[in-house]
């Protein structure tokens, strides 16, 4: 379709009137891809009930236009209703590219819609590029982050991808541009096979600083050995106005503050200025999550711990010796001379 302006779509995610943090990231990247390829328009798709205020946010985050679909049936996410609306909108408008945030919801919705459209989907992409001819390059990781490859969807449209949270930066907000298109939800939902009913969505907003926002992350692994010692890590993180992170084994032991603090393949990808790892051996599932950290300092009593290979500074020592000293030294350093 050489005469038509190519469209890049970003599917927005909201819960109870709050945009998911990955949504501005996806929109920012869509905007950059549009600039790369030239002559593309960026649209956001927003589904929900009484979420009109968020449509303006999406324009400010880089969308040229927002397709707004509001209906009581869309108040709470479920894949039957959301999948139906998206599938029908995409079939009607035929965008070149459709991007989702690779959240739990996005990772369910994207393959659902891709199956209905019989098209290809890149999974939790860590990089995206768009050629002038419209071909999307999707960088993906596999095998716990140990293998990288690029995926392409040359023949089918749209090209779809879910985007790993934390990989792209949002654009600075720019108010007052773009247009909001209200869609008739009942038409988009008519005759749909609705088999699921979402009873409620419960959000348990965690206390403390989120890993994504922290300049310093103090992380612990299996080697920490118990809840008592874990408290020292939390104390150090607090002293540095940072966040506490963990590995899968530490999470499974129940020492940590919960799943939202897990770093790695099945957890978060983080980019602090400084990452301090204690008692972490460095399985690839964890280290792939810290590859974008500024400085990595690892403390482990085993000189052969694989984590040392991907650290900037290595301390071969028992963390029990280092942690208390480090706490008091930091407290001393913070007292103005």
């Amino acid at each position, binding site marked *: 379709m050489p005469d038509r302006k190519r469209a890049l779509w970003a599917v927005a995610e909201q819960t109870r009137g709050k945009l998911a943090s990955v949504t501005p990231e996806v929109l920012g990247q869509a905007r950059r891809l549009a600039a790369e390829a030239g002559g593309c328009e960026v649209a956001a798709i927003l589904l929900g009930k009484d979420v009109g205020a968020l449509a303006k946010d999406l324009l400010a985050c880089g969308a040229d236009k927002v397709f707004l679909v509001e209906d009581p049936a869309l108040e709470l996410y479920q894949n039957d209703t959301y999948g139906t609306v998206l599938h029908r909108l995409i079939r009607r408008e035929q965008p070149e590219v459709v991007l989702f945030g690779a959240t739990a919801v996005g990772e369910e919705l994207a*393959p*659902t819609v891709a199956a209905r459209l019989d098209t290809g989907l890149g*999974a939790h992409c860590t990089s995206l590029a768009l050629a002038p001819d419209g071909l999307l390059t999707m960088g993906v990781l596999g095998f716990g982050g140990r293998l990288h490859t690029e995926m392409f969807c040359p023949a089918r449209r749209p090209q779809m991808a879910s985007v790993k949270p934390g990989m792209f930066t949002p654009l600075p907000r720019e108010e007052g541009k773009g247009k909001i298109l209200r869609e008739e939800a009942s038409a988009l939902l008519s005759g749909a096979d609705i088999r699921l009913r979402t009873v409620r969505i419960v*959000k348990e907003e965690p206390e403390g600083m989120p890993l994504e926002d922290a*300049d310093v992350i103090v992380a612990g692994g299996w080697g920490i050995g118990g809840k008592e010692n874990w408290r020292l890590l939390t104390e150090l993180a607090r002293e540095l106005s940072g966040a506490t992170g963990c590995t899968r084994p530490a999470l499974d032991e129940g020492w940590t503050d919960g799943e*939202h603090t897990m770093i790695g393949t099945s957890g978060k990808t983080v980019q602090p200025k400084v990452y301090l790892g204690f008692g972490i051996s460095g399985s690839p599932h964890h280290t792939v999550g810290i590859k974008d950290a500024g400085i990595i300092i690892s403390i482990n009593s085993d000189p052969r711990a694989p984590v*040392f290979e991907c650290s900037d500074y290595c*301390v071969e020592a028992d963390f029990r010796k280092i942690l208390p000293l480090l706490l008091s030294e930091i407290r001393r350093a913070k007292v103005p001379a």
Partner: protein
Amino acid sequence: MGELNLVVLVKPVPDPSCYDRIEIDPATGALLRQGMPAVLNPADKHALEEALVLKERFGGRVAMVSMAPGSASETLMEGLAMGADEACILSDRAFAGSDSLATSRVLSAGIRKIGPFDLVLAGNESADGGTAHVPSQVGELLGVAHLTNVIRMEVGPGGSVTARTRIENGYIEVRGSLPMVVGVRREINTPRYTSLMGVMAAQDKPIRVWGAEDLGVNAAEAGMEGSSMRPGRLSRPDYRRKGEILKGSHEETVRRIVAILRAEGVLG
């Protein structure tokens, strides 16, 4: 509610504990699998456990379905030893190079061939490719309700389903009814160990191998030809850093760390 026809999708994957030793063949650009034993995809064991618990409660049958080489029977023995009643391996050269949707097409054909089903369970994602697409796409292709990231699930006597699915910092509570396809997370249960009795019983359980023709899957629906996605070259990301060892007494080491923190401007 009568007995349940339960299907568990399983995938043999290279042992995840070997992934830091992964090598790529420089000549072919393909992954070298030697020295990486195949194991049941860890998340799939949780799907199987959930199926076995449902079978204990309602009665019925548990069939494992796997798109894999015929040699996968060895890996699937573990599932049979845990308590699955049979295994169906969907194996054909024509399936090679399938993307997640083509894989889901083959799996759906296998599920249909087994017969009517009440519930299809799968691990939410595989440890190797890990797209997490298959449960949703199988659900779409079978034309039934589907859920992913399931961490709790109750099947009522009338076939009603109440499930919890994990989302970031919370969960969704959702209701539906059988038939359904469900992708489970490891939090849902603790898979049982295999017993000696189980291992012995497994020897006599049927393992079927079905090819494209048996399944009525044609070349345009599976493998490279039936896939929208094309992979580029594999590479091994290099996460190595300088690895400077901080030497000296603990006090000296700690002072170095504080100096680094100060230089990075994070000392508050």
